[in-house]
């Protein structure tokens, strides 16, 4: 069902890739425990956590194993009970080695203070500071993909005030349905999570933005929202990349976040629906971030499904549960089809920021031959930030980083719309990403 009326959206740029939401009707299944989990100590943006367990220790579910030191960092908890067999550097999905803790699963013993019952606990008894401390302790990070520590986002800079809270239920990426299923199945819990966020930020208004291709979620949440004053649900037009922070703010409030500024500068804070649910569990049930919902999808997979997965489960285990790896697989991608990264190997573990695993057949993954730019300006038209990707690519190749900075390369949100639309198959985003890191390096040196 599609309502054909003027829905809210942002104006500049954007594309509409084929949706392929194969799993939007399949309920979330709880995945059985694997034999061994590998928990990376750097699953978030910022300083990696420092291990606080040693080899041979027995740990319980929810026990702290990595202490996030510094302001921008997050705690890491054990997602299983068992014995620590190894603390070593192990490859993450890029293949580069990162510090990790390997735990062999024995039984399923939880920490005593975690409430395991699924009853809804509505009244918020803790004070603002206690809630913040709880979120920090539980190692909650933004579950939309960037994995930015949530407590940092909730502590507002001095002399700045949030007027509204925006909850991101857009899920504009093709294939992914984990947020969609969460909204349908854990809607009430999520609403309580939003109330908690509203209390911490001291705002009276929360807006949930959901794209119009999730009509059942919009109806369901509008229904529940009547019980929670201050929370409203807004259907949005289907457009990629609406799930990006700045585009969502523009769509819902009409305000534009200035270049290199944060959403709080225009008086809004954005959180993902999964983060709201994780915050509910952390504050009301004392449960740290030890599992999350992941979509395992792909046209060639036998059983594409949504799973509740413990952090640290090997990817191979998830794919086996979804019917095994098809023979003609070309790429396995972590995250969405547009912004995700291909896995280097299938032995790597699930991390907090992983929202989906996509299995793509070989003939779909091949890149076409790169041809010269024909100056059609399609990339300029689709860029949601109003940049000129055709210009940024040669500037990066030439190493003209001062000009790149002037062309606002740092505003790029790496949505990949330019590479998607380019008729000459130019790898625009690959180079823009490189240019961004180099410009960041220059700026850091200047300080």
């Amino acid at each position: 069902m599609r309502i054909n009326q003027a829905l809210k959206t942002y104006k500049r740029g954007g594309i509409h890739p084929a949706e392929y939401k194969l799993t939007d009707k399949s309920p979330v299944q709880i995945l059985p425990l694997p034999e061994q989990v590998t928990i990376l100590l750097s699953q978030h943006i910022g300083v990696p956590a420092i291990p606080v367990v040693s080899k041979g220790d027995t740990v319980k579910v929810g026990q702290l194993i990595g202490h996030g030191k510094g302001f921008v960092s997050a705690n890491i908890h054990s997602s299983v009970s068992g014995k620590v067999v190894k603390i070593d550097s192990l490859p993450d999905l890029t293949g580069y080695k990162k510090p990790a803790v390997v735990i062999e699963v024995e039984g399923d013993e939880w920490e005593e203070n975690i409430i395991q019952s699924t009853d809804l606990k509505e009244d918020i008894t803790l004070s603002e500071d206690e809630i913040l401390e709880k979120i920090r302790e539980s190692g909650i990070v933004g579950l939309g993909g960037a994995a930015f520590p949530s407590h940092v986002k909730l502590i507002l800079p001095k002399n700045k005030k949030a007027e509204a809270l925006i909850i991101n239920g857009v899920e504009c990426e093709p294939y992914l349905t984990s947020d969609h299923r969460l909204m349908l199945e854990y809607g009430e819990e999520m609403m309580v999570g939003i109330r908690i966020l509203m209390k911490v930020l001291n705002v009276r208004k929360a807006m949930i933005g959901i794209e119009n291709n999730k009509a059942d979620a919009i109806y369901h949440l509008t229904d529940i929202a009547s019980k929670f004053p201050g929370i409203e649900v807004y259907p949005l037009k289907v457009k990629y990349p609406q799930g990006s922070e700045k585009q969502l703010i523009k769509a819902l409030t009409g305000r534009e976040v200035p270049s290199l500024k944060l959403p709080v500068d225009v008086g809004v804070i954005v959180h993902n629906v999964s983060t709201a649910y994780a915050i509910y569990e952390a504050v009301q049930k004392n449960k740290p971030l030890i599992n999350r919902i992941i979509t395992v999808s792909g046209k060639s997979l036998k059983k594409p499904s949504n799973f509740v997965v413990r952090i640290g489960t090997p990817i191979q285990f998830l794919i086996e549960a979804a019917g095994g790896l098809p023979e003609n697989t070309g790429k396995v991608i972590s995250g969405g089809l547009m912004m995700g990264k291909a896995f280097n190997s299938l032995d790597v573990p699930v991390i907090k920021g992983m929202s989906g695993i996509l299995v793509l057949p070989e003939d779909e993954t091949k890149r076409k031959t790169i041809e010269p730019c024909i100056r059609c300006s399609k990339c300029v038209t689709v860029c949601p930030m109003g940049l000129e990707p055709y210009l940024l690519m040669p500037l990066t190749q030439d190493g003209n980083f001062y000009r790149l900075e002037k062309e606002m390369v740092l505003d790029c949100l790496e949505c990949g719309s330019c590479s998607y639309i380019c008729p000459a198959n130019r790898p625009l985003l690959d180079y823009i990403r490189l240019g961004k890191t180099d410009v960041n390096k220059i700026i850091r040196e200047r300080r």
Partner: protein
Amino acid sequence: MSSILITILFLSSIGIVAAIILYLFAQKFKVLENPIIYDVEDALPAANCGGCGYPGCRNFAEACVNSDSLDDLYCPVGGQETMDIVANLLGKEAKQTDPRVAVIRCSGSFKNRPRTNHYDGASSCAVASALYVGDTDCPVGCLNMDDCVEVCEFEAIYMNRKTGLPVVIDEKCTACGACVKACPRDIIELRKRNKKDRQIFVSCINKEKGGIATKYCSVACIGCTKCFKVCEFEAIIMGNNLAFIDSDMCALCRRCVPECPTDAILEINFQPVRTKTDKENKTASDKISEKVKADIKE
């Protein structure tokens, strides 16, 4: 006739006035420049490669003239000869600097390093390195995508498609250091240029433990310290499971090369080593040839 005369006179008078104005302005805004800068610039190789650390030869010439000593200034392309000429022009003294040459410290060819996945993104080492570990499991090895080849102004480096590794042409290399900067994995090193361009170096920069390193590359340095023990000149430094041969200390004795269990130490431009049996054979054959010669003489 008169109209032609008037035109010529009018135009030439405009010309004279304009010339006077230009002359006056040129005098007013004259930039005083040390004329010796031009001489120094002429002595430089005019490659504008940036190997000296300055944007071009002109800037380097200015720096030479303006600085008190030439100790920190060195033109890698011109080498010691050019620096001596510059020093003569300026009446300063040039520091003795050994000529250098670029060396590729990776032997992970297609044969030695099995490919574990396939990369089809943008053909640039910098992009691939920022994205992931590469098409082998080695996190520090060569990505064989021509970043160093493209950046070389002297065509001194080419990609060997059979091995998938870049090769430096020693005669053409000027040690400007452009490839060193371009390599995202810091594989390329500038080492002292020896007689006949001979070179002995550890062709690996992997810091993993031996067991792990040999899993993804058969010619990785495993940090066994065998070469370190055999070296008499203290040229080998050990650390982080890796050996490094200091090119300034190395006496090119080749004693470390056969010691290496994984063939990670490379020798370039050397004659093949003569084994004992070779020597005996040769002496025997020499004797025979001498005999033959003697026979012919008789």
